[in-house]
């Protein structure tokens, strides 16, 4: 049997990637568009078929009600958690959503849970990997923000299962990044990883010792990222437009405005990126009714504006250092991860916080996926490059049990190395009591109501005894994925107590089973079929290109012999096209590609490059957004 192919996946808020360890080097596997980054956008096409990535971004323009982005913000959350998100993101919830239920998002007239939408993104990445290896990939390591709680982790694992992937490990994103960095730097010391992405912020402090990567403290905010900067800029633009033109684009009902809001979003994202290198940028956006919204933003104003957002990372960094018992001077290196660390002001902040210049040797968009590939390699038995590497990660949040008075009794403290466990003893309050209820919480707050409710357990079948006599031992274990397991035993009878779990947020096993996109049994057949479809579609593309080439002036420059050869290759490809053998079709395509290389070169010489035009960003409807005071002068309208 061939060795397991285990891929590393970065399932990001904005972009997702899949990577693999090729020899001693992790490499990103490109998608069918040749690009490394797959935008984390999902849409349904007019035939209700899902499209993912750049294709979805384009499809969004016409059908915003059938598309969704930044779904990671909703993973493992309940309807009561996401009121803030709903103000800024065009998430359309199912009409019959009940509190406490797993969220369902409307795409057209269908509804999908966040794990299902994430699964579509994962499946797209899986396809790229399948193509790369020429066979199905079924095992993966998926990264999650270090500060993800149990429910968010479980939702990510469910997404993997739905996509037909066995998730061997969930790895924390900053830790994964440290693995990618540590691969060729075999030094010992303390490093801090500052990971500021599209939707989440993490800080992790690690001790490197003979290739053991030991996390000592982690902290973060799972709802803080580049999205928040975009939303701030959009809010200002919408305020301006409403104030000066009386045009309120934030009304959800004005479908026609979605495109304008989208144009604004696209423009501010471009402006944000430009402001990392330019002293100022000019926004110029066409509005409904032919007016234009114009505003110049200087770097200084922009930096003043985003200061409160980036300042929110400071508290987490200080807490992590405090938890690690370290002062900034004791940290040897600081590594930057995530697209938002391209902002010079963020880099300046990091430098000030840690008293040193941060490292940016690896592409901050790719480093997490590369690290996931390293971890995948370790799990697969290791290679020469990774054989001595070992990751010791921690749980980011304390685990607690609700006790009398609604108070949280912490039983596993945050920053405990995982796997970690704790044992609690329970007894009964009344004679013959057969059940005991346990409420499990995650968080740092004193009161249970301020912590995250993970689940309620009912210990059942406790043997009938007088009150206070049974002694039920309950063992809580956080595994290497940061996910909780619970087992119970009544000590006096030695009987294993039955546990019934009601996860506070999350899918049941049966629900996940029912959602699985590709049945494992059909994986090979599915793969063959998909390959055949793709090979046929590629055949159509190359034949169309050849027809076009024959009309090109370059065709005339070929020799008769060359033309004859091409005709022969074409004929054999057309013949194979009708057959079922995708490998033969692919081979014929390759042959034709080789044979027409000179033609292609000649055509290139005369070709005119065409600039890509058109809007391709996601549609946005903004809800009731708060207004944002800002330091800038009045906008101009003409």
């Amino acid at each position, binding site marked *: 049997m061939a060795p397991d192919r285990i891929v590393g996946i970065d399932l990001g808020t904005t972009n997702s990637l899949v990577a693999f360890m090729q020899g001693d080097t992790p490499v990103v596997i490109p998608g069918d568009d040749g690009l490394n980054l797959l935008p984390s956008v999902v849409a349904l096409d007019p035939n209700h078929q899902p499209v993912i990535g750049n294709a979805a971004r384009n499809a969004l323009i016409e059908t915003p009600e059938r598309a969704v982005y930044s779904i990671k913000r909703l993973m493992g959350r309940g309807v009561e958690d996401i009121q803030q998100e709903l103000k800024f993101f065009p998430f359309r919830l199912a009409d019959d959503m009940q509190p406490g239920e797993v969220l369902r998002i409307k795409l057209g007239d269908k509804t999908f849970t966040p794990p299902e939408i994430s699964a579509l993104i994962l499946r797209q990445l899986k396809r790229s990997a399948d193509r790369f290896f020429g066979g199905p990939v079924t095992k993966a390591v998926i990264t999650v923000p270090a500060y993800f709680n149990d429910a968010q982790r479980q939702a990510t694992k469910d997404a993997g299962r739905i996509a037909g992937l066995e998730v061997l490990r969930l790895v924390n994103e900053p830790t994964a990044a440290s693995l990618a960095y540590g691969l060729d730097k075999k030094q010992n010391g303390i490093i801090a990883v500052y990971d500021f992405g599209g939707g989440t912020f993490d800080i992790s402090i690690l001790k490197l010792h003979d290739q*053991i990567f030991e996390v000592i403290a982690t902290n973060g905010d799972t709802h803080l990222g580049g999205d928040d900067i975009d939303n701030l800029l959009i809010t200002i633009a919408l305020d301006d437009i409403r104030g000066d033109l009386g045009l309120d684009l934030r009304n959800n009902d004005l479908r026609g405005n979605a495109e304008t809001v989208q144009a604004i979003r696209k423009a501010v994202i471009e402006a944000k990126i430009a402001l990392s290198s330019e002293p100022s940028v000019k926004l110029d956006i066409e509005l409904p009714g032919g007016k234009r919204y114009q505003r110049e933003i200087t770097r200084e104003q922009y930096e003043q504006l985003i200061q409160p957002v980036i300042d929110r990372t400071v508290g987490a960094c200080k807490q992590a250092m405090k938890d690690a018992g370290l002062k900034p001077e004791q940290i040897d290196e600081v590594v930057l991860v995530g697209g938002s660390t391209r902002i010079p002001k963020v880099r300046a902040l990091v430098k000030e916080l840690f008293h040193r210049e941060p490292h940016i040797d690896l592409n901050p968009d790719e480093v997490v996926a590369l690290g996931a590939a390293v971890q995948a390699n370790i799990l697969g038995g290791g290679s020469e490059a990774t054989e001595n590497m070992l990751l010791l990660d921690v749980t980011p949040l304390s685990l607690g049990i609700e006790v009398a008075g609604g108070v949280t009794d912490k039983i596993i403290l945050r920053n405990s190395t995982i796997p970690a466990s704790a044992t609690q003893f329970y007894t009964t309050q009344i004679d013959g009591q057969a059940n005991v209820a346990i409420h499990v919480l995650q968080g740092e707050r004193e009161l249970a109501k301020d912590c995250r409710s993970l689940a309620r357990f009912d210990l059942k079948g406790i043997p009938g005894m007088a009150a206070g006599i049974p002694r039920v031992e309950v063992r809580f274990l956080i595994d290497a994925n940061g996910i909780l397991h619970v087992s119970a035993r009544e000590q006096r009878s030695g009987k294993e107590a039955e546990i019934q779990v009601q996860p506070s947020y999350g899918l049941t096993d049966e629900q996940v089973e029912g959602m699985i996109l590709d049945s494992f049994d059909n994986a090979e057949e599915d793969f063959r079929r998909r390959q055949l479809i793709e090979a046929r579609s590629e055949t159509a593309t190359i034949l169309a290109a050849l027809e076009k080439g024959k009309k090109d002036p370059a065709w005339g420059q070929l020799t008769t012999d060359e033309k004859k050869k091409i005709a022969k290759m074409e004929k054999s490809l057309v013949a194979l096209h009708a057959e079922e053998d995708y490998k033969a079709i692919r081979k014929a395509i390759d042959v034709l590609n080789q044979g027409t290389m000179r033609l292609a070169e000649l055509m290139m010489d005369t070709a005119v490059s065409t600039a890509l035009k058109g809007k391709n960003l996601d549609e946005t409807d903004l809800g009731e957004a708060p207004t944002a005071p800002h330091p800038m002068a009045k906008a101009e309208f003409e």
Partner: protein
Amino acid sequence: MTKAALTAISAPPLPQETHSCWSCGSMRAAHFCESCGKVQPPVPVDYFSFFGLAPKLDLDIKALEKSFYELSRKLHPDLNARAGSQEQEWSMEQSSLLNDAYRTLKDPIKRTQYLLHLEGVELEEQSKTATEQARATGETKKQIVPPDLLEEVFELNMQLEELRMNKKTGEDDPALSEEVGKQKLSLESKHEALLGELQTYWKTWDNLIDRGPAPLAERAQVRDKMVDVLNRRNYIHNLVRDVNAAMED
């Protein structure tokens, strides 16, 4: 929250002392087989024994860290990811035991508390029970003030009360704040000094252990001293927390 895995982890196997590897039959080390490297089923042992240590308190932390890393390289689930499901479960169990043991032993206070727990003193449970009882009855938890602190605590509590009143009325009394700040520093240095005191009892304890089976009375004597230090330390710890809270709000 986990689902399928929940039923998958059954209660740990009953204590079974075997000394040969389940896989290759060789004599094995405690947690993994020295011959074939396979992880062995966990055997319930105390944290000191897990590391092959005598129940002594003056630990060489560097050496402990070294064994922690060495054992991690054998027991961690990442390095046993390709093993069978039973072995993976053992690996998770053993690895969590290792982490729990290391976390407890590397910290001087947790280590002492743990040793006292092995000696039958349940400091945390006592405190927890008291807290829960207080909560249930709605009373504040009664703390026994260490005698040498009586006077100081009495005065400090008056000052804290005054500080809180001032905060309510918006008054500012810099002299009072300064005084409380000073008290806090004094408490913190006492807190620190108690660790030193504790360490002297560690030595006494370790000597007892080294001498072989120590008379119960002698053990109890050192044990009680350590309990006393920890209680005082905990009391000061809570006091400092109260001072911080009063100064912050």
